[in-house]
């Protein structure tokens, strides 16, 4: 009996703590082998600290595992153990029984209300979901022997992965569940693993360690004489990887120059990070591949590294083609998440061209365009017969013409926040977007940046890729956010250039903090926003959730639309632009 009471006490105390810490958006280690939170959990091999579990603050457990729409609905319990065989049915039974016992202990009166008790337990059993390497399912299903198979790579191969839908006042259940599950693990002869500590952080995009599988032909590397195809493919793949990170062949060279022995070309790591984001990962990979080596004077390029550089210079044409090919790739739509607010209604102009595979025959309509000879003759043959002509005659009603297709050209001006906070990955993503748009569309692209106290036209409206690349390479984020100045410059650029259906895309992760006319930065940006609809410019703003309130007002002024993302990454940006272009085309179709 004493033991029973302690269990109830323990559960109650755990429940109190959990509701406290969960409220602060924290997770905890329960006991020594269990991690509990309302978020996702991950191992941290990147830091090489063993036994550590990271609580991923940007991944809500319910949303990511069970496709819930609302956050904080689900408690995530991971019980780590040495890989071994754990039957999920046993776990389910144990939890089921433990709950039953617990209710009985807590309220002995329930002994006489068996149906009531069973209903309570069954109710919870439907809300708890267990995954082990041997299978998965809700406790209710597992209890009846219905096991869904475990899929390779899923959560749960070295831990029991339990998701429970619990309200704040039900968190004491976590202890009951964990204790019962632990009992099953131990009973199966599997040892519990010790979680050394936990840390909180955001889930980073998985960094690819390419050093592991790319094999460079360094031993017999003789530049273009590298005979075997796989060698060359390996080198090319490495360069494509680097280009993905750094932006282009020129920028790879620039990066590698940072590790040359020429002191004047070397760049500090801080400066590199500003431009390219987290370079340390790539540096590590290059070191592993033997391209960069450590010397008493710092890191420098090894002989192999120099050879690679030479290879890059020699094969620039082909490499750039391959890189451009990768930039053209459209990301798959599913993975990105954004929210759109507001609607734009502008009129569009169209460009027409002839469609040689469709003909129209409409005698009542005045025509302009190309005559479709074969179709006309066919029609004339038929009609002459009906008209009763002796020989082939062609009348106006017989004429067929080629149809016309049209499309809406949209020239895009990117208005890019180049303040200090945009440094690194966000800068790279915005630059990538500009290149992607140029390479996949038939329209012109321009880039305007704002930083420090002013704004600058980095790339005027162009279809020339080298102009774009040169302009983008000069962007080094630093300083404040003079949004008003940026908007004014962009609007003026659009006004002065000959553009069709201009679309102004503002990418920012902040709100204005440097003013233009008055001393109030935010009010100035609002004022500047008026000029956008005045000049008949379509406007969208891509921002982050935390600035929603201000940006919403700004966009309303500008008669534009606001896209909110949780992360300013490539895929999100590209998908937003695709989405926006699609809405423009759809609206055209509706009007027609």
């Amino acid at each position, binding site marked *: 009996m004493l033991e029973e009471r302690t269990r109830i006490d323990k559960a109650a105390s755990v429940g109190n703590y959990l509701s406290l810490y969960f409220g602060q958006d924290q997770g905890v280690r329960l*006991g020594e082998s269990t991690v509990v939170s309302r978020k996702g959990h991950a191992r941290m091999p990147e830091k090489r600290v063993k036994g550590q579990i990271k609580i991923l603050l940007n991944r809500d457990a319910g949303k990511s595992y069970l496709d819930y729409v609302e956050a904080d609905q689900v408690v995530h319990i991971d019980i780590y153990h040495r890989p071994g065989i754990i039957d999920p049915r046993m776990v389910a039974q144990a939890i089921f029984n433990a709950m039953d016992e617990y209710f009985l202990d807590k309220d002995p009166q329930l002994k006489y209300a068996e149906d009531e008790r069973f209903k309570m337990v069954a109710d919870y059993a439907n809300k708890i979901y267990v995954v082990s390497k041997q299978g998965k399912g809700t406790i209710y299903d597992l209890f009846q022997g219905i096991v869904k198979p475990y899929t390779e790579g899923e959560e749960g191969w*070295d831990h029991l992965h339990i998701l429970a839908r619990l309200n704040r006042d039900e968190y004491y259940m976590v202890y009951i569940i964990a*204790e019962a599950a632990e009992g099953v693990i131990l009973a199966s002869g599997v040892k519990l693993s010790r979680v050394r500590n936990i840390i909180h952080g955001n889930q980073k995009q998985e960094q690819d360690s390419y050093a592991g599988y790319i094999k460079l032909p360094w031993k017999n590397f003789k530049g273009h004489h590298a005979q075997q195809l796989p060698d060359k493919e390996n080198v090319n793949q490495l360069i*494509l990887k680097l280009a993905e990170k750094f932006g282009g062949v020129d920028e790879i060279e620039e990066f590698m120059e940072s590790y040359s022995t020429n002191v004047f070309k070397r760049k500090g790591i801080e400066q590199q990070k500003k431009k390219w984001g987290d370079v340390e990962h790539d540096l590590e990979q290059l070191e592993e591949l033997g391209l960069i080596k450590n010397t008493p004077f710092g890191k420098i390029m090894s002989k192999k590294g120099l050879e690679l550089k030479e290879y890059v210079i020699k094969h620039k044409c082909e490499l750039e083609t391959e890189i451009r090919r990768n930039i*053209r790739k459209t990301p798959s739509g599913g993975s990105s998440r954004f929210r759109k607010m507001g609607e734009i209604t502008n009129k569009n102009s169209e460009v027409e061209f002839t469609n040689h595979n469709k003909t129209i025959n409409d005698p009542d309509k005045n025509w302009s365009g190309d005559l479709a000879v074969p179709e006309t003759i*066919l029609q004339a043959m038929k009609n002459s017969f009906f008209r009763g002509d002796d020989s082939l005659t062609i009348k106006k009603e017989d004429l067929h013409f080629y149809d016309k297709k049209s499309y809406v050209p949209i020239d895009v001006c990117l208005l890019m926040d180049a303040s200090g906070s945009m440094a690194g990955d966000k800068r790279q993503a915005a630059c990538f977007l500009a290149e992607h748009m140029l390479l996949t569309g038939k329209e012109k692209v321009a880039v305007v940046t704002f930083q420090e106290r002013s704004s600058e036209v980095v790339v005027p409206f162009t279809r020339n890729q080298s102009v774009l690349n040169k302009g983008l390479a000069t962007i080094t984020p630093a300083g404040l956010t003079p949004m008003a100045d940026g908007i004014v410059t962009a609007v003026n650029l659009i006004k002065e250039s000959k553009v069709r259906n201009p679309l102004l895309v503002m990418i920012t992760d902040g709100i204005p903090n440097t003013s233009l006319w008055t001393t109030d930065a935010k009010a100035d940006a609002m004022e500047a926003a008026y000029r956008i609809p005045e000049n008949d410019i379509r406007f969208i703003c891509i921002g982050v959730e935390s600035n929603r309130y201000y940006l919403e007002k700004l966009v309303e002024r500008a008669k534009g639309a606001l896209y909110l993302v949780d992360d300013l990454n490539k895929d999100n940006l590209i998908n937003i632009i695709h989405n926006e272009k699609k809405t423009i085309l759809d609206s055209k179709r509706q009007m027609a």
Partner: protein
Amino acid sequence: MIPFYKLQRYEGNAALFELVMMSIVSSYVGEPLHLHAEGLRGTGKTTIMRAAKGILPNITRIKGCIYNCDPEDPHCPHHKGMTEEEINRIGVEEIPMPFLEISHSAKVGTVVGSIDLAKLTDPARPEASMLPGLIPQAHRGILFVDEINRLADTSPEITDILLDVMGNKPGHIQIEEAGLPVVDIPVNVSIWAASNPDEDPGPLEEIRRQLSDRFDMVCYMGRPDSVDILAQMLEENSHRHKIKRNQEKRSQAENEAKDNEYRQKVIKWANTYNNTDLPDFLRNFIARLYIKHNIESIRAIEAMQQGAVLHSVISNRDKVMINDVTSMIPLVLKHRIDGDTLIRMVNDVESRGAREGILNFRGKKNKEKESEPEYFQHNARSLKDMSRNELVNTEKDLTPGEY
């Protein structure tokens, strides 16, 4: 035009020469092999493919049959189901293997077939009849499409037809014209295509993924990078050379002789190809690659099998070897999977070679796992053994030093 044998061969275009030969041999036997050469301008994609026209062997068809009916297996609406006697009465003829081109002024009617306008408007005897388009006419031969990425962009209708023709081996085509009976015939046509992925409208797989997957093999062309080769190319293309070539009869005869050599080779190889099969262990090997690397396209491994056998044949061997298969991997998969997977696959195969047991994927995989050091220590106490105040630990409690 420069004859096939005089074209410069260098590292960057060697693969295409091989592929062209393989496809000719395969088409001659009756199994199409679709090729796509991608590369920058001036890498000789179109030149090599067009020059191959000169070395094509002859095929036998029923006399005057515009659909190129094989006398042994007539398929067209005119000759289908004829007896041997009837065919003998019409007679047979030898023609060079067809090599036709779809140009950018092509329309659905010219590619598939349409009503014959000349017969229709004949004042003496007007008659409605079908005029087969390029694809049915290229039966048992080769159809070349230059700048296929642009064609896919501007004429989706023609692209749809190509999808049908390339979908199966043999493919099929249906010709429909109002007022005439529908004609549905099988076609055995190897489609050869060339494109520059860097020019508008971009690489084919971005424009029409399906069409790009239909190509059995894609060859990425490299630029010539040796001075000697470039100098020789220039010489071959100099004005003096061109004029001389047109005037000299002697060189004509020489070219003809060289072309004939190729023709004889193709016929010889075709015979070998008919008698060669992929050994079972290599077939298993390909199947395992498919499973292990999660390749999506069955067409890819089919092409790998076909390519491996052909590659061994044109290397004058009668046995297929493992490196015939591995050399096909990049050609078959480069346009179908991403670069990372391809590299993993190539390196995986390379590093192990034949001796270490290519069939033994599992053994290696398990070994790696075992050597991985354990992430956790397995000495945790259970919840039952802990007192109440030990139960809940926060990040702060567990890493005291950092706060």
